């Protein structure tokens, strides 16, 4: 059995009717008696930017909310909270996700990478970040963390994309300032190709 499954099967702790849990522990344990299989516990471990973080998460809580308001990782932006803009894009197990539309409970035992996790321990910028500076890619900057994360995920998988591939890969990230051309220049530069 794969470790992720066994981990999940093993979850037998206090449960997660958030209404009950929010009220008091007496109600919580009363509900726990007939806890159906698979209900989630609230205190969970998350792997964020290579670090394990313990955090109390409501059942219906979205990852963007947990990151910003419980873990202080405010680089992840909420532009719409509806999966319509991409400002909240993070990388989960190598794949871009809208963190506003990802249940925090669904990323237990998965690796979450946010904009704060890109710089090296010594503080060196990721090549995408440096290229975005060199190309003056951001304007207002509110979509930038999401654009960076989509670009990073692309280059992990395809280190030398064509400009069209980069355009497709970043297409789930809106930029209201219209800096698309400059972001694509940044991706091409980060990949070592002339924009």
């Amino acid at each position, binding site marked *: 059995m794969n470790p992720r499954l066994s981990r999940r099967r093993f979850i037998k702790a206090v449960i997660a009717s958030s209404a009950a849990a929010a009220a008091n522990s007496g109600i919580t344990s009363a509900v726990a008696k007939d806890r159906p299989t698979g209900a989630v516990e609230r205190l969970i471990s998350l792997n964020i930017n290579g670090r394990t973080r313990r955090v109390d998460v409501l059942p219906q809580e979205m990852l963007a909310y947990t990151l910003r308001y419980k873990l202080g990782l*405010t680089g992840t932006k909420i532009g719409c909270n509806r999966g319509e803009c991409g400002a909240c894009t993070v990388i989960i197990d190598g794949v871009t996700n809208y963190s506003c539309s990802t249940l925090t409970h669904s990323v237990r035992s998965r690796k979450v990478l946010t904009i704060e996790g890109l710089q090296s321990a010594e503080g060196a910028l990721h090549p995408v970040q440096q290229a975005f500076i060199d190309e*003056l890619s951001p304007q207002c900057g509110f979509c930038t963390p999401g654009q960076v994360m989509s670009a990073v995920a692309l280059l992990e998988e395809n280190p030398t994309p064509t400009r069209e591939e980069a355009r497709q890969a970043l297409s789930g990230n809106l930029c209201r300032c219209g800096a698309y051309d400059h972001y694509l220049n940044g991706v091409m530069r980060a990949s070592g190709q002339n924009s």
Partner: protein
Amino acid sequence: MSDYKHIGKDFVPPDIMGKVTGKAKYAEDFRVDGMVYARMYTSPMAHGRVTNIDTSAAEAMEGVVGILTAEDVPATDAPSAAILTNTPAYIGDPILAVAAEDEKTAENALASIRIDIEPLPFVTDPLDSLVAGGPDAREEGNVYVRSQEGSGFRTVKWTKEQVDEFRAGREPGGEYANEWSYGDLEKGFADARVIIEEPFVTIGYAHMSMEPRTAMAYWQNGTCYMHASCQSQSFFMPGLAAMLGVETKDVVLISENTGGGFGSKIGAYPIVGLAGYFSKKIGRPVQLRVTREQEYYMGSARVGFQGWIKIGFAADGRATAADVFIVEDIGPNATGGDASSAGGAISLVYDPEAMRFRGLPILTNTTPRGAQRGPGQNQIAAVMAPLMDKAAKQLGIDRLQIRRVNAVQNDTTVYAGQEPVTSAYMDEALQQGAEMFDWETRKNQAKRNGSKVRGLGIGQGYHSAGTNGFDGLVRITPDGKIHLHSGIGNLGTYSFASTSRVAAEVLKCEWDDCVIHHGSTEANLPWNSYQAGSVSTFTQTRTNYVAAMDAVDKMKRIAAETLGGTPDDYDIDGQRVFRIGTPAQGMSYGAVAARAIQLGGAYSGQTYPEDIHEITQRSVQNLAGSGLIGVAKDKLERNGVIPGLACAFVEIELDLETGKYDILDYVGIADCGTVLHPQGLAQQMKGGAVWGMGMAGLERHVYDPQNGLPANVGFHECRIPTYMDVPSVIQVGAVDLPDPQNPVGARGIGEPAMGCSVAALTSAISDALDGHIFGRTPISADMIVNHVAGLDQSFKPLQTNNS
């Protein structure tokens, strides 16, 4: 000045590192101890009167901290926007707010609140209000006229026949509210070889900045600390203070980064007042993060136009006369005023020998309107481009030629008052663009390939691009650092930094030794211009110039006082002030700064010019004694209209079967005087191009006329252009000829960058469809398919806010 050290060179703006690392703080990224979360209950009704509010269930909820209603905030007179209202005039108008320990509880509380609203008549399309018997958006009237002679409501009604005539594309015969003209209109039309007469509609649409605006306020010892999303910094302050009922000295505004504004965050807007009053009422810091839907409601929107235009052209293409009539949709709060600006743009860009403008601003129960990137100029740019093409075709002249022959030049006079321009190089821009685009070759290429047709378009954009009279403030400290204080705001154009570089240029100093102070009132900022209307570049280069010149003057005087001679014996370079002829005799900037502190007086800001703004005065007072202070009000010459100009050439491939088109090539050329910041200019030109593409084909308000409901409250339904809707490469260039009324020759460009794009696209679409003129933006796929299939469009002529 010439042989610049900083002007025209790229640099790394100080705020970009934070943007690519996520460390940049926007208003919502701040938290303070004890902060509570506010949420708004917004009107579900397009127009109504609140008759009862029951918040008892909400107040009984654990975690609910307070409720704010219209009774808790200053009343405003219609049609001004209220912080909270009991007479909502659009769906989304805020009625009350609730604060709680967390957002979920605040929303649970909202869900429990019961509000009774008595419905009042409402209207979503100005012409439905204009027609006799039609509903009025406000009980006070359906028209609101702003003028220097006095502003006020009116009720203007046309007969059904008059409205029908207008819809049919004939000259409107009903009452109007504003008028201006110049020249002999009758003679102009009599002289014309060709006269083009067309109706038009440009549908308003939401700004939809990426950042949903947040306001967070708390009070300490009578001072209100406000974290907000503002596109202006100092300029925001007087309105903010007035809204809060205090003086500017009692407000600290923190706005380090702003997630887009596009005209929607120039001055204080209601939710900053809401946060301030709520915090005062409950004695806790209050953060109000609006939802995306609420950002749609109160984040402002472009004014919609319904109009008629008639233009005459002589045989050589010269415009002889223009007569334009615009009904403008000014929303519920009578904001906007785009129509007259559109008329001004016609007078400048096409320079008709005679012209008349008539306008009628009509209130609707749709979202509040406001300045949006090229307010008026860009709507009319979209309208005009295909008309110019039509005229060229009828006259048998080239489409480029008809634009060149009418191009605004240095000696052109513009607007109702036929004022001069500071400089203008539209013809040079057109020539440069035509060459880059290879217009001559492309215009002769084959158009049709299967179901696809190529279309070429040329567009021109304009906005007045500068103002004057603001203050500059620089400071040199004994450590040799040069401090550049900027109160312009940080909208994302980097102009707070690029305009500050003018001070560095004047001071002949290294950029690495400069520190920019911005983003908070506490950074001691000068009274600076609004960051809007393409004015930053022209205006702030001047303030930085005069402040730096004041610093240079003071350094020379200090050197003379310290080392002997007269100030004229001294010059600066290498961050030293030295004696001309014996350069070894001099002082470093650090030493001069230390000396300035010793000498005091004006040198170190103990005294200052009387004509600087009180906000600048307070900053100087705070900084006094910390170094050499350069501070001055911009009193440089300014005579005439400062035009920001741009043109664009575009080639599209339109599929007649799908109604979709690809933008194959785009070339945009700026005439913004001397190029201040090449990368920043490219960003503005390209971002503006994307905005034009959104306006041309995608973005619009949609309102159900039956119930006043908006159909598009999110990014998705608002159809904000994506990577895949715009070309992946946009080419740009600049004329780069200096404007004589700016010390470094620079003018602004942000808005014309969009106007030229939307115009080039409406021109190209028309070209692809054998000259068909939709007379409407946006031009969506369904319209193109209907047109090709010979079907009627699904909206009434001149209908707006439709699907």
